[in-house]
């Protein structure tokens, strides 16, 4: 396994290069959009004079490259800077929101990953049975609807009809564990429904693929029972593709849930990013963008490492 460490180091090195490129792209992208923060804040009330004054205060009157270099200098010292629109430190704005985003992603993952894999295995085990068909149809239907629609349906059933859970998933300081769980149920369930089919179908397909291999036939001839074949012989060999799908879904849970955040009034990173882009608040967008990029890079690396570990041929290269 010694070859893993150099791999990780090499990939981390590349990661920094990627992050640098991404930060440059975000900066150029925001500059290319029409309008700037001063204009976004003053809106209809903008005049030549107050625009100029606000730009000067925000240092937006400096040339683009000067601003980028000074931002780069600050961030290399670990200083994320202050938001242009309300002057708050970016780290303070992002810190707790990122925690919230992670909390939601983590809870959705804790529910959806085991569920998807178990259901995938069940479907593979009872291939083409009515159970398989019902599970496939229902999860595929859930993934076909847009997230906000799934969320509205859940709200209609669990909030309006049965009044079991709140539709406003607002996390406040000083909430107890049970309160947090209560608030998280619906957003978590929405996300689970949205990602479930993807992982489940992949598990099912890979397992079925492996089941047609000669060594499975051998096991069957040996008289091994079907569920044991799937668990001990098929699953380990199907892990690679499953891990990849799981990790991609995890990444989506972290970076792609802004719609669910808005519907449930959940204070996460997504809403912050959307607001900041519309206000051209470059420091905030940069940091959020880099956090999202890091998430992808880190999870991709994790997927690769796990795939290698799960594959004996890669684990022991000749």
């Amino acid at each position, binding site marked *: 396994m010694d070859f893993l460490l150099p791999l990780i180091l090499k990939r981390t090195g590349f990661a920094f290069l990627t992050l640098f490129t991404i930060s440059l792209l975000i900066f150029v992208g925001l500059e290319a959009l029409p309008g700037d923060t001063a204009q976004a804040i003053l809106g209809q009330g903008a005049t030549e004079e107050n625009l100029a004054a606000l730009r000067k205060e925000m240092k937006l009157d400096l040339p683009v490259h000067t601003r980028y270099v000074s931002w780069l200098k600050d961030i290399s010292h670990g200083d994320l800077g202050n938001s242009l629109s309300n*002057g708050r430190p970016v780290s303070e704005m992002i810190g707790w929101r990122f925690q919230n985003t992670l909390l939601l992603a983590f809870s959705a993952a804790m529910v959806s990953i085991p569920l998807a894999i178990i259901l995938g295995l069940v479907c593979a085990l009872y291939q083409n049975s009515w159970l398989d068909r019902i599970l496939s149809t229902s999860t595929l239907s859930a993934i076909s609807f847009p997230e906000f629609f799934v969320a509205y349906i859940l709200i209609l059933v669990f*909030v309006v009809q049965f009044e079991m859970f709140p539709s406003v998933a*607002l996390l406040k300081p000083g909430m107890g564990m049970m309160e947090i769980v209560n608030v998280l149920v619906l957003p978590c369930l929405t996300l689970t429904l949205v990602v479930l089919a993807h992982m489940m179908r992949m598990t099912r397909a890979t397992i079925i693929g492996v089941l047609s291999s000669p060594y499975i036939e051998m096991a069957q001839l040996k008289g091994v029972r079907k569920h044991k074949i799937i668990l001990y012989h098929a699953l380990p060999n199907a892990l690679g593709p499953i891990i990849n799908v799981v990790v991609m879904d995890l990444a989506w849970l972290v970076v792609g849930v802004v719609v669910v955040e808005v519907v449930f009034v959940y204070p996460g990173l997504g809403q912050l990013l959307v607001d900041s882009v519309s206000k051209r608040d470059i420091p905030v967008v940069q940091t959020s963008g880099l956090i999202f990029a890091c998430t992808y890079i880190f999870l991709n690396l994790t997927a690769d490492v796990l795939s290698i570990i799960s594959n004996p041929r890669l684990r022991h290269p000749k």
Partner: protein
Amino acid sequence: MCVMEDNKSGLTRRQFMAGTIAAGVAASIPGQGLFKNAWGSTPKRGGAMKLGLAGGSTTDSLDPATFSEVFDQMSTMGLYRNPFLELNRSGELEPELVTEWSPEPGAKVWNFKLRKGVEFHNGKTMDADDAIFSINHHRGDDNKSQIASVVKPIKEIIKTGKFEFKIILEEPSADFPYILSSTRMPCVPNGTTNFEDGMGTGGYILKEWEPGVRAYGERNPNYFKEDRAYFDSVEIITMIDDTARTTAIKTGQVDIINRPDRKTARLLGRMKGIQIIDTPGGLTYTFPMRMDQKPYDNVDFRRAVKYSVDRESLVKTILQGYGVPGNDIPVPSYVKYAANAIPQRMYDPDKVKFHLKKSGYQDETVRLHVADMVYNGAVDTAQLWKEHATKAGLKMEVVKEANDGYWAKVWRVKPFCASFWFARPTVDWILSMTYVTGASSNESAWEVPHFDKLVKEARAELNEDKRRAIYFELQRILHDDGSVVIPMIANIVDAASDKIGFNPVAGNVELDGFRACERWWFKS
């Protein structure tokens, strides 16, 4: 103009009229929740109120110079801070932090007396230094404030006593004190540099605030108004999604929301325990035609465009009945000196053809630039208008613009586009902001020397009748020759649980003039 005293009891003629108008609106809409709430139920103290608010973002700031959304401005209106004067529901000024105001002869110099014994939340007594600092925050060259141009007429502010100050203007202005009721000019302590703590004199003390998420305040036990700020605590939760707000009020997770979806508001109002609060308002949708660009410099062409829209049908489909047709006059009917006697302009294909022919631009295609961010339904409005215009023989094309940067790249740039205004409290303010030469928000490039002269004349005129006559003439000019089409003026629509009590509601801006937290109460 003279010293004003608190006048809390007694119904003025205007209040009575406004009440009757509201009653007329409600009566014409069956199933409306307006009268589930008996007006005048005795206010009661107590309760934790929660408000679901559309119009808030993570970039909100409590610096009065850069207020951008509803939340920021609400904080001024008796929530954490106070403006100097209160605008009551009939559009008249009432004492708030300033108790007395009077002009010296000629209305070029105004004297103000502050209320004594008002304390900021940190215990400091509010005095003239704080007031002058708060006004000066928006003044001076290189000022970043949104209302820098509004306070430009101020030449000098002089402290004349611990609780008195004097404002000297560049030119006489009879309506000047209205500026001190601005939602963007709260009184903050002298020397404030960090505005984000919400320090002020308001009815609630800001305890927790996260922009775009929530704000929580507890009642200020030292509030200078005995009969206001009834709730024990107020929590404002930003809810951008229409459905999220609607569900939250339906299930009792919040007590008040603003901007319920007009399409479903009637159904919401029919639900048990929910009242829709529908108030004739000042939300004016405007479509400026730039007079400095052809063919809009031609008055007949402008008239043709004005006659080409079916206003009634827009009110019915876009506003779902929550509004009135506009008359190309930017002054809503409740504002003092509104020229309500000018006959309503109707959709008239014959007149369109007549004026088109007279203008000589028969083959001209009108390009209407719109984006949905201007208001919910702006693009639909344009599409409907296109139908009306085509039927009347005016060629029209709808150009859908990007939401991003609309105010910078389309508004005041493209010759014909969509815009909106919350009507300012006086005719003078409305006209001098958007219809005089050189005004920063002159969206239609309406630069008419005769008009400018009349606006100035009316501003300095202290005789009521003469002023009324000049303002009538000004509004007539805008109606006949003006360069802005105003097809509709929307009502203000809010929704509340029927546990919430209130007096007749102000319609200038949403949530009772942004003052729901201060003016409303729990009935039991």
